[in-house]
């Protein structure tokens, strides 16, 4: 669900120096132009493969890490129904990671390598999950507004050119629709509730507004725009286009609940459909992506713990014939 609209694109700035066979490249581009999908055993340019692995892998990591800030609220969810729903939702996210890792694996990167790259910090995940969920309302904001942003991103990307990624995204989008309704239900319950509940959800919205604006990445005018990735249908829409689409849909839904968005300058230009907002501190965005966020250390530490402490289970399942032997002394 949490494909950050933002692709880390340090490498995109450098043109590929590998020369591709012009005939194969022309065939490949003609296929994409004709709206056909690329399958794993098709010829593809090295750079296409590399960027897809990077993007799908980051998407998968985001699902795994994104489960943590919400997962922490399962034990404290208010009531049995909320607990069941949140468990199902978090399980879905882990399932999405599985689907996405599988799609990335078809491009030739083994799953173990992707896990190692996540845990060493080499590979990134959606920036929003480096922020904490101090209250139940924060968890609900993720379920509603972060999932909503992810859906905008995923619906667009499901029209991309790589078959396995599109298939995974279609299934993911289908499941996400439940998350969106669940999140909305949770927020509406708080926003139409007691003064204390309203205060709780308003405070959470204020904490999350900046990360929400960050979600789709820096504005187009500052971000590197790769014409080639658009042509190859790896990247399907610009950061600003996705953000505008998101704001147009969700700002009215937030406002109808009487919640106040903490940005007096937020407004839509009805003629162009584009939104203006006050500076959400893009320096902070880059600081957090590069490790200096409130929860970066915790998120990775927890995943490392899980991977390391799951090792004996994996080994036991692999070699069921290994018998437990009582120590000699």
């Amino acid at each position, binding site marked *: 669900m949490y494909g950050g609209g933002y692709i880390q694109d340090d490498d995109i700035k450098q043109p590929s120096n590998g020369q591709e066979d012009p005939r194969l490249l022309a065939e490949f581009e003609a296929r994409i132009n004709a709206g056909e999908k690329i399958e794993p055993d098709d010829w593809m340019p090295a750079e296409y493969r590399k960027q897809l692995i990077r993007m799908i892998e980051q998407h998968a990591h985001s699902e795994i890490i994104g489960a943590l800030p919400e997962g922490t609220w399962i034990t404290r969810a208010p009531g049995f129904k909320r607990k069941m729903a949140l468990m199902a939702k978090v399980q879905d996210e882990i399932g999405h990671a599985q689907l996405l890792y599988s799609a990335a694996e078809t491009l030739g990167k083994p799953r173990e390598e992707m896990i190692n790259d996540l845990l060493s910090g080499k590979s990134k995940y959606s920036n929003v999950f480096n922020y904490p969920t101090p209250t139940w309302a924060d968890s609900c904001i993720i379920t509603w507004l972060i999932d909503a942003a992810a859906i905008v991103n995923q619906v667009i990307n499901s029209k991309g050119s790589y078959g396995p990624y599109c298939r995974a995204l279609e299934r993911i989008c289908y499941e996400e629709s439940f998350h969106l309704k669940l999140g909305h239900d949770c927020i509406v319950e708080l926003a139409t509730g007691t003064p204390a509940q309203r205060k709780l959800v308003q405070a959470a919205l204020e904490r999350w507004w900046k990360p929400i604006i960050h979600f789709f990445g820096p504005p187009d005018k500052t971000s590197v725009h790769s014409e080639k990735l658009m042509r190859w249908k790896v990247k399907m829409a610009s950061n600003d286009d996705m953000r505008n689409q998101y704001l147009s849909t969700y700002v009215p839904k937030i406002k109808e609940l009487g919640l106040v968005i903490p940005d007096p300058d937020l407004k839509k230009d009805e003629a162009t459909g584009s939104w203006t907002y006050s500076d959400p501190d893009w320096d902070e965005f880059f600081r957090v992506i590069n490790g200096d966020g409130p929860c970066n250390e915790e998120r990775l530490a927890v995943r490392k713990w899980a991977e390391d402490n799951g090792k004996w289970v*994996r080994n036991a399942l692999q070699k069921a014939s290994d018998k437990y032997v009582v120590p000699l002394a």
Partner: protein
Amino acid sequence: MVSLDPRINRLDLQERKEETQPHEHWPTWEVFHQKKRGAQAIHVGIVHAPSPELALIFAKEQFGRRQKSTNIWVVKSSEVFTFQTGDEDMFETTPEKSYRDAGGYRVRDKINAFKKENQQDQ
């Protein structure tokens, strides 16, 4: 590091001693899902598992936890044989295949003409 979650604060968090090794997460299995009795089993994706039994258990969790399901099949990915997708032009035999379709056979006009002719003869 202090977490908001007391359970995390109780964990013994350490740097990794060893990276996850190749194949530690097991080989892959292709999963086929059958929605209901009478329906086809349809390929839905893969799982990683060390044995067919566990592949079925993981597939049940991954692909059977939400929608109606009657059965699941798994088969080791390495046991599946395919053509190359790029060779799809081998399926293009003759462009005109109406002789294989029900719609390729229209007789009503002929019958009507025949009837009309016979009526005139009488």
